[in-house]
């Protein structure tokens, strides 16, 4: 039991990273009903942009993050405009396949441009371990938890208390009602995609100083993010917090007490169990369908 505090701390840090990655995915998923398989590559791209900003251009941390967010928003605009808009509403599987294609494309572009070796971004934060009682952490890991908390708060405030937020939520509920209420659905779709990819890039950038950036690094990340989003219920930010932190803590405890072989098996078994009991996810509203 002496190790429990450290396991919990590990779980909260990793869980916060899951929450961060899941936010962008759940927005795009919940509002536009687009399953973006390439979200993990967006995350990796954010990491590479952070390396570019912090190492090659020598930016301080905050301007480097701004660079990541601006570039990722522009990238999201392009992807929405040239891939998802032409596909339209035909069929959700087509969207999945197209984003699968995008994922392969991006992974191999990364491999070509940046090479297969991992890279690491400079966070500018003080290095070395911080000891809190029996718990060891680093300032970079604490920054992940803080960044997740800030991002979630900002996102919730925007969604709950601003007109932009209202328009996003209206579209996620009922596109027709949103349109006749004067909401330009096209513009909202673009904005959502830009926000979603910025969030993916932001989380990739933050994580790139703790973990490393590699061309194929997005595959596992997107899997975890999907688990969180679906367990949470599509589009539910509150759900993503609970599911993300919950998954992180469960994984840390399983790794700590049962061994890491069991971790992924148990994670996925929990997903199956949750969805078997609540097919709409933990926080999904079971609304009628016409």
């Amino acid at each position, binding site marked *: 039991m002496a190790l429990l505090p450290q396991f919990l701390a590990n779980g909260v840090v990793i869980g916060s990273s899951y929450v961060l990655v899941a936010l962008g995915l759940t927005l795009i998923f919940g509002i536009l009903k687009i399953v973006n398989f390439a979200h993990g590559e967006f995350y990796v791209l954010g990491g590479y942009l952070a390396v570019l900003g912090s190492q090659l251009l020598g930016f301080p941390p905050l301007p480097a993050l701004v660079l990541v967010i601006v570039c990722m928003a522009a990238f999201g605009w392009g992807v929405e405009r040239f891939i998802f808009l032409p596909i339209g509403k035909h069929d959700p599987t087509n969207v999945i396949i197209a984003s699968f294609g995008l994922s392969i494309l991006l992974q191999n572009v990364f491999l070509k441009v940046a090479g297969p070796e991992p890279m690491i971004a400079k966070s500018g934060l003080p290095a070395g371990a911080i000891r809190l009682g029996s718990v060891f952490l680093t300032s970079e890991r604490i920054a992940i938890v803080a960044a997740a908390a800030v991002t979630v708060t900002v996102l919730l405030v925007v969604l709950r208390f601003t007109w932009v937020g209202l328009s996003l*939520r209206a579209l*996620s509920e009922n596109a027709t*009602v949103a*349109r*006749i*209420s004067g909401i*330009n*659905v096209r513009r909202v779709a673009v904005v959502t995609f830009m926000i979603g990819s910025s969030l993916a890039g932001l989380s990739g950038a933050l994580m790139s100083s703790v973990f490393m950036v590699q061309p194929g690094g997005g595959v596992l990340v997107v899997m975890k993010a999907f688990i969180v989003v679906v367990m949470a219920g599509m589009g539910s930010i509150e759900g993503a917090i609970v599911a993300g932190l919950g998954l992180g803590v469960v994984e840390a405890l399983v790794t700590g007490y049962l061994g890491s072989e069991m971790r992924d098996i148990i994670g996925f078994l929990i997903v199956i169990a949750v969805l078997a009991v609540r097919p709409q996810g933990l926080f999904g509203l079971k609304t009628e369908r016409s």
Partner: protein
Amino acid sequence: MLECRNVDAGYGKVQILHGLDFVVPTGGLSAILGSNGSGKSTAMKTVAGLVKPTSGEILLDGHRIDELGAHSMAAEGLSLVPQGKEVLAGLSVEENILVGAYHRRKDRHGVAEDLEMVYQEFPRLRTRRKAAAGLLSGGERQMLSLGRALMARPRMLLLDEPSAALAPKVVGEISDIIRKLRGRGLTMLLVEQNVSMALELADEIHILREGRFAYSRKNGPDVDIEELREFYLGKGRS
């Protein structure tokens, strides 16, 4: 005020409306009656901008609106009140009402005023303002849709089957509200299956059959109800 000139519309290659032609004068209330599959909901969607006409023109106060798209209609003064089931189920009642004022969100003061006005008009919505709209009864949802439409400060309302799936008593309440709104000078286009409601409210009655008007006449004491029913059911001559 609203003028449809020879409008054709449909989905993909399937044409539903054939040469729809009618006028709703300012302050007037026209009703389009039709059974299931007659094309009346397509007619409503076309006027509201949700379906683009393949030919013909739609004019509001003399200028064309058929190329604007649904999200611009609110700013033009045209508000659609969809059927009661069409609400933002996961959002609160108040958010549902507020979203109707989206195009004039910069007018903070006016929006707050109108919200108060809607609550006065529909006190039941005030008591449930924090509840999720998906939990409301059918009648309450219909009122919510009306409230949201009013938030746009429309000059004209498009009412899509306000009586659908409602108990007779509630239908009466809705009729009263429509009459009251008309009293304030709102122009209206009503699409209905409920013949008696239309007869009670409308100045002019059109019957839609297979995408064409089979009957168009001024409403009044001289309307032969039997004849009208025959047209509605598809037995009459056109």
